């Protein structure tokens, strides 16, 4: 599973010092011989239980289908894996939300440069009517949890 493979890579990369990432196979030169930061004792990762309500909420929002219990387990393992991020001490550090944070946001002049490609756009749509896209009616919310037949359908 991709999650296990990912785990191994992360551990290898964790011998960083002075914010330089290990270059994997070449090792050696790039790895700081006197790291400032040591990986702590590997604590057993806490089990994260996912409630039925949360599953229902996620299915409704993201329109994914977890299909069966294996899918739910995979979700739980993924959450566990991501929780490892909490090990890093981020006190007093501003969160970075974009790798572009030191870039200038380019400002475009207010000129008309695009448009008038109705035919091309409509080409992609399966249903059109007189230059309009045709969409299925309204937002039909998923039925309530109790009423749904397909929730975790293939579980035994």
């Amino acid at each position: 599973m991709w999650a296990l493979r990912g785990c191994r890579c992360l551990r290898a990369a964790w011998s960083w010092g002075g914010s330089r990432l290990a270059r994997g196979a070449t090792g050696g030169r790039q790895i700081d011989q006197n790291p400032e930061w040591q990986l702590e004792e590997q604590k057993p990762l806490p089990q994260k239980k996912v409630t039925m309500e949360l599953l229902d909420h996620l299915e409704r929002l993201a329109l994914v289908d977890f299909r069966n219990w294996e899918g739910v387990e995979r979700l739980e393992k993924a959450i566990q894996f991501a929780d490892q991020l909490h090990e890093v001490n981020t006190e007093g550090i501003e969160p970075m939300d974009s790798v572009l944070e030191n870039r200038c946001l380019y400002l475009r002049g207010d000129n008309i440069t695009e448009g008038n490609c109705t035919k091309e756009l409509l080409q992609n749509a399966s249903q059109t009517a007189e230059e309009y896209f045709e969409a299925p009616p309204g937002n039909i919310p998923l039925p309530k949890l109790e009423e749904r037949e397909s929730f975790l359908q293939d579980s035994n």
Partner: protein
Amino acid sequence: MAAPVSGGGRLCRLAWRRRAGALHSGAQPAALGREPGKVAAAQSGVAPWRAVVGLEVHAQISSNSKIFSGSQVQFTAPPNSLVSFFDASLPGTLPVLNRRCVEAAVMTGLALSCSINKKSLFDRKHYFYADLPAGYQITQQRLPIAVNGNLSYTLCVGAKQSQMVTKNVRIKQIQLEQDSGKSLHNDARSQTFIDLNRAGVGLMEVVMEPDMCCGEEAAAAVRELQLILQTLGSSQAIMAEGQLRVDANVSVHHPGESYGVRTEVKNINSLRFLARAVDYEIQRQIEELENGGTILNETRAFDYKLGCTIPMRDKEGKQDYRFMPEPNLPPLILYDAKSLPANIDDQQVVNIDWIQERLPDLPSVKRVRLVEQYGILPEHSFTLLNEDGLMELFEDVVRETQMNPKKVIGWVISELLGHLKQYDLTVKESPVNSLSLADLLNLLERGVISSSAAKQVLEELWKGEGKTPLQIVKEKRLELIQNQRELDQICQAVMEGHQEEVMEIKAGNKKVLNKLIGLVQRATQRRADPILVKQILEKKLSQ
């Protein structure tokens, strides 16, 4: 709102009471109990309610192209013709921020006394709807471009709507965001058609704190915001074209208790409907709570035909928008005179101070200037600014005429505007322009015609046949009789023909004089100046 609450008072002293049968009879619900303490005797001894109204106003930015793409912004166009690949969210497209939209938001923020955030961030707000092709809207949730502002607006209160009261509403924030496309429903055939021309147009969302307490205040605040936006030019703010959309958050509570559950009312497309929708929702919530029910935190749509709010099927339950930072847009950095970097392209810099210096006079400033410059009343200057183009017309007339502005205003508002309203015309569509009106007022000022004759001339001018006031006066022989001797003779004739009345006046009954004046007017076909006639008659009677 009897006690004039000026400036700082945030919660208004309006006490709401349920009006028995108001909603069911289909009558217009009205805010009763405006005078705190004056309660309709028929009401049961239920504690008063206080209503709290907050508004979220979306104003379409007036620009040539959309906020993140180069397609055109235009209200009417063939469907899906003003759509770029980015607007249709085809893979491989990226947003590029339009400079004009940033400037518009900064102008609006400065005009509303907001602090402009020199660094603001863009986020994605996720929800599924057919008119949102990307499945998310780019907005500014964490750190918007402007925060903590203030909007002052005026309410006309009192019996004749002549007393002006100033109120304030705090502006929580202004953020830049994208508009969604338009969906047209054909419910009969269960079809929905999507037109993406509007998708991606720049919007400024102005979030107002819940400092308002009724529909009238909400409408007045939005009207003032509309005028400000139109003066700045950052948005044309025409509600009928969807350039200004308002969502109202309404809740009720007893004074002293915490705020109640709020509902959101959408689909309001005029100021009048805004006031009605808010008032209806307040009454509905009061009725519901007094009947022992509860208010759901839901979204309701305003049905303008029925004059009521109904729950919206699509928006059940609380939405989780899964906000996340927009990864394709770095933070937006704005500069001022101090922080301006030395060698940077002018095109890439938005200088807050530069924009501040070039802000035009806001409506509130213009109103004060009109009062000071022309000596007119505050409510007159309010009316002048409320009608598009009326202020310019008034100033043009004042410039062209010798009449005192204080008298001109009467003619502009009562007569000209009165006629415009009667025929449902805008100032621009007026058949009488400022020059014609100025000519007419000059004739009146010089004593060539009387006031009632002037009104007759205005009626004629309204027909728009291209005649000048002077021509009409001559045609209809409306000139006042200037010849003293002629007047004298007519007065004498009237007196001789009505000896009884003359006796009565001489005996001391002065009121009968008016009858004689009336008779003279009839004899002269209303071409006599009543003041002059009175003088002549009085002189004769005393002889």
